[in-house]
């Protein structure tokens, strides 16, 4: 499922004096089967961009192609449901979408909407809850009674239960504790590696980008600045500097060590670094 933006622009409240162009002339291709991180400052158009991916927003101009779906500025798109079945969007603070009496029912809500039978929806819900690490003891609990991190996971399970090919997550780790964040990163990697999902991640946290993403898309003022391989992106110090991007800790550490004369090329993880410094592998 290749994703291709062509000359896509979106304008908020076009008739008002305060009409704002949130994104303009986006030309972008997002690769299948990879984890792509979309980064950029607040207001750079990240959230606007991803809401096009399942046609919650329709472009003001330009087109978006996802496999055989084409989204244009046409007001009444067809096959929306089929598209939303393929592209699952997890919103920022997704825990607010929970509404059913039990967690299991809430997670089964999505698949039921897409036409799965009651039993099948429940089976899918159980599977999705397993993926996010909520065991049987949570099935019958109210989604309003569990902790924030667990709510977040239940909400993500609600999308996973639909089994989309492309999973889009808007700031999935915002407000989670370090452990929750770590588990979340592990979950995305697993979804990508084991279940071969295409993952698109919107985040502020460059640590997460460095650790999990294959590719990085940098947005600024509604335009794509660059799209490249995550490791080479963080190696490009001039680019990072000119866009005021804080480098991940490991890159910073590497820089400090290289300043002292160590040669550390092609090292992208803490394991590699440890080995290069004479530590044991594993």
């Amino acid at each position: 499922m290749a994703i291709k933006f062509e000359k896509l622009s979106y304008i908020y409240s076009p008739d008002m004096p305060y009409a704002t162009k949130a994104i303009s002339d986006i030309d972008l291709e997002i690769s299948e089967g990879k984890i792509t991180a979309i980064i950029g400052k607040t207001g750079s158009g990240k959230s606007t961009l991803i809401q096009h991916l399942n046609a919650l927003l329709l472009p003001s101009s330009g087109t978006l192609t996802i496999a055989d779906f084409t989204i244009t500025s046409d007001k009444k798109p067809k096959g929306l449901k089929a598209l939303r079945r393929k592209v699952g969007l997890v919103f920022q603070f997704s825990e607010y979408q929970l509404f059913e009496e039990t967690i299991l029912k809430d997670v089964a809500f999505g698949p039921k909407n897409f036409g799965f039978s009651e039993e099948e929806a429940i089976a899918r819900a159980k599977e999705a809850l397993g993926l996010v690490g909520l065991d049987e003891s949570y099935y019958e609990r109210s989604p309003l009674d569990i902790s924030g991190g667990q709510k977040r996971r239940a909400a993500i399970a609600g999308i996973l239960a639909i089994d989309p090919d492309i999973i889009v997550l808007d700031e999935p780790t915002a407000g989670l504790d370090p452990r929750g964040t770590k588990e979340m990163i592990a979950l995305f990697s697993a979804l990508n590696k084991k279940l071969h999902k295409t993952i698109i991640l919107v985040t502020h946290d460059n640590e997460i980008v460095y650790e999990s993403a294959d590719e990085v898309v940098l947005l600024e003022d509604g335009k794509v600045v660059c799209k490249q391989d995550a490791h080479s992106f963080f190696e490009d110090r001039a680019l990072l500097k000119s866009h005021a991007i804080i480098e991940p800790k490991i890159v910073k550490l590497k820089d400090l060590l290289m300043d002292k004369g160590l040669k550390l090329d092609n090292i992208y993880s803490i394991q590699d670094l440890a080995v290069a410094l004479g530590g044991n592998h594993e």
Partner: protein
Amino acid sequence: MNNIVFGKYIPLDTPIHRLDPRAKILAMLVMLVAIFIPAGWTGYVVLALAISFVVKVSKIKFKVIIRAFRPLIFMMCFLLVVNILSVKQGQLLVDIGFVKIYADAIFNTLYIIIRLFLMIMLTTILTMMTKPLDLTLGIEYLLGPFKRIGVPAHEIAMMISIALRFIPTIIEETIRIMNSQKSRGVDFEEGKLKEKITAVVSLVVPLFSVSLQRADELANAMEARGYVPDAQRTRYRRLHYVRRDYILLVGAILILLAMIALALFL
């Protein structure tokens, strides 16, 4: 959802924006009274011209104001039907067996529609051209004299300003929850009755839970800052009438007098 116009402040710098909120509120009240004076077509032309002039000065596109009427179209059609069925005066226009349409039915409906139009136009101008904070400040000042007879002016103003403050937040919240549920396959536009009910429940339950949570947080934040409703307080901003405010008020009162004159002598 983005089409909700009513009550949304538009940040511009026009003469209308700079007017004293008290003057704007008073002028609006005077004009509302003027609208309800039966001054015939001439009167409405005068009013429409006056209000259009204000819209023109305020630099707002007519299209945007027209949008505020859209939700009322159904009501207006309903009104027309009721009037056709009940009013049996004036010239007989159409006579198809049991349906008899009289001229007065049409005229009465038109009168009401024009009145509604003008009223909505006025109130929309007021809320679009005045910062919610200024608006409540104005209301508080205007209610001031009634404090002596036990009207809690400050509390009323505080409640209004909190309510106004949270309208956009709640709309935003609603859009976000709707989008989340759409991603889970909810169709808010179409579907059978049972599906529609589920769709609404999937929106309303989270919305209530978020709103209650927000109210709780706000109450805590206010208490943490030592808010006491009936405390004596001073203001950073004080309101002063200047010449343009008097011009507005005098203009509004002149229009009201003109309407009364038209109603009496025509």
